[in-house]
């Protein structure tokens, strides 16, 4: 099972994955960026982005997926998401209180409206997506360890 997982699945699965992985990533970015206009938001968008990388890994094996998004990049993105969220909160501090909504509100139903909410959505999605992908990579590597010892 470990050899098969390293080389990936059959040809049909690989061809379909090559067609749909980019679309899944684009769908995740769409749900994330329209989070203040229609249902969705940072959490759902981040999980969909993580699912696109997990899909790539299940179909092609872990070598290809780790080449697309190496481990150092994953940990960098997660820390960057958390720091971005905190710095947006602290910038509001200068205007009055913590988490003040200080960018101009704009007209409703535009894409660039609602103050800091789109920026917070991007920070949350980076953190959630990279974190869940790191959890999945760690669990898959542990499985290999337990089978190799036998």
């Amino acid at each position, binding site marked *: 099972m470990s050899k098969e997982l390293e080389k990936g699945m059959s040809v049909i699965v690989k061809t379909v994955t090559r067609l749909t992985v980019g679309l899944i990533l684009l769908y995740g970015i769409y749900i994330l960026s329209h989070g203040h206009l229609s249902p969705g938001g940072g959490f759902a968008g981040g999980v969909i982005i993580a699912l696109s990388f*997990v899909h790539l890994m299940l179909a092609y094996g872990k070598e290809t997926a780790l080449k697309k998004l190496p481990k150092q990049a994953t940990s960098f993105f*997660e820390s960057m998401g958390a720091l971005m969220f905190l710095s947006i909160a602290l910038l509001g501090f200068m205007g009055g209180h913590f988490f003040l909504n200080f960018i101009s509100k704009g007209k409703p*139903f535009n894409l660039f409206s609602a103050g800091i909410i789109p920026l917070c959505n991007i920070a949350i999605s980076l953190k959630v997506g990279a974190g869940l992908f790191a959890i999945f990579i760690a669990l898959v590597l542990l499985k290999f360890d337990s089978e190799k010892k036998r």
Partner: protein
Amino acid sequence: MIELYILLMFMIVGAIVAVEVEDLLSCVIAVGAVGLALSMAFLVLKAPDLAITQLVVEVLCLIILIQATLKKDLPFSTTGRWALNTLITVGFIIVFLLSAMKCFKDLPEFGYPIMKLAEEYTRSGLTQTGATNMVSSIILDYRAYDTLGEATILFTAVIGVLAIVRRIGRKRPGETIKEEDE
């Protein structure tokens, strides 16, 4: 409201199947069915944000569970004292349900909530935040501390998983550390 009752009955039947079946893979698939019915129930209850999030989170949860249970199953066997344990558990559940039925008289009737704070948020949400999705404006503007706490919880969970998975042990003399996991 009949579709809500049908979805709840489906969830209860799926949960009973997941609890009683012996094969681990079938058990995990039954939990997947329960999660899918829950996502449809969120749609019927007019909560589209929650339906999207529940669907994708449940898919990821299934993938993680199947990774853990592949080809590892347990032959079914029970030791003694199972009659006393089952009796105590069922007795406790009956007491819990009876006391819950007494507490339900204090809750508002189903379909007519009190909504004292939500009226405030709905009335001034669009002008004060500028976002048209009310749930987003609550979790990222009115109650942003909770989102900060949730980001911290996710960070702690990732650190916890990486700490468990890492190969532990001191370096014995003469052994080199190969780069095998995190």
